[in-house]
C-alpha cells in the first residue's frame, strides 16, 4: 500500500491546477496527485513545488494547443502593419461582391475603401487619414 501524499503537497497541486483552463483542471489535478504516490516525502514536496512553478507554462501550452474554429488553431492576434494602423498606406485591390458590385479592399489589413464619387479616396494617402480614427 503506497502512502498518500501529504496535505501540503495536495494543497500545492490544487493551487497549481487553479491556474489552468477550467476544462483541464480535473485531469491535471488527478494526474499530479497520482504522480505523488510512491515518492518519498521530500521528493513529494519538491515535485509539487515544481508543478506549481510550471503551472503558468502549462496553461500557456494548453492555450496554444486549444483548437479554434474548424479544428484549426485559433489565431491569437490579427497582424496589422503599422502603415495600415496609422492609415498612411494601404495596398488596395479590386474585388467583387456576390451580386457583382466592385469595391476595393486593403490586402494587408482588410479595410474596405469607401470612395467618394468623383473625388479621391478618403483614406490611404498622407497624414490626413489619421483623422478617420
Amino acid at each position, binding site marked *: 500500500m503506497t502512502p498518500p501524499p501529504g496535505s501540503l503537497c495536495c494543497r500545492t497541486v490544487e493551487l497549481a491546477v487553479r491556474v489552468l483552463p477550467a476544462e483541464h483542471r480535473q485531469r491535471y489535478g*488527478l494526474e499530479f496527485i*497520482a*504522480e505523488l504516490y510512491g515518492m518519498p516525502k521530500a521528493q513529494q514536496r*519538491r515535485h*509539487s513545488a*515544481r508543478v506549481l512553478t510550471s503551472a503558468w507554462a502549462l496553461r500557456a501550452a*494548453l492555450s496554444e*494547443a486549444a483548437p479554434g474554429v474548424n479544428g484549426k488553431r485559433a489565431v491569437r492576434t490579427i497582424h496589422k502593419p503599422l502603415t495600415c494602423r496609422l492609415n498612411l498606406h494601404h495596398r488596395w485591390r479590386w474585388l467583387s461582391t456576390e451580386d457583382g458590385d466592385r469595391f476595393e479592399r486593403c490586402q494587408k489589413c482588410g479595410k474596405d475603401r469607401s470612395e467618394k464619387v468623383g473625388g479621391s479616396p478618403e483614406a490611404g494617402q498622407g497624414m490626413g487619414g489619421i483623422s478617420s480614427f
Partner: protein
Amino acid sequence: MADGGPRMTIPTQLVLRALLEDPTRELYGVEIGTAAGLPSGTIHPILARLEGLRWLESRWEDIDPRAEGRPARRYYRLTATGVESARAALARAYRPSPVARMRPATEPT
C-alpha cells in the same frame, strides 16, 4: 515553429529523445522526467504541447485504485506520426557548434 512543430528547446529535445528510446513503451510524467534527466514536475508543459500537436497520446492507467492503493496514472506514448515528426525535428535541431562550422575541412594527405 515555422513548420508547425514545437519549439525545439533543449528540454523538448531531451523529452523526445527519452520517448524515442522505445516509442512503443508508455511512460507517466515522473518516468519521462527521470528518463529525460529533467526535474520532476517541470515536463508537463512540454507534454501538453506535444499532445496538442498529436505527437503524443495519453490515457489513464487501467487499474483498480483500491487494490493498488494509489490512483491511476496518466500514461504517455508517441503516436506514429509523432515518432516520424520527432525524429525529423531532432535531426533538424542538431546543429554543429559555431566553432566546428568555422573550422576548415581537413583533407586527407
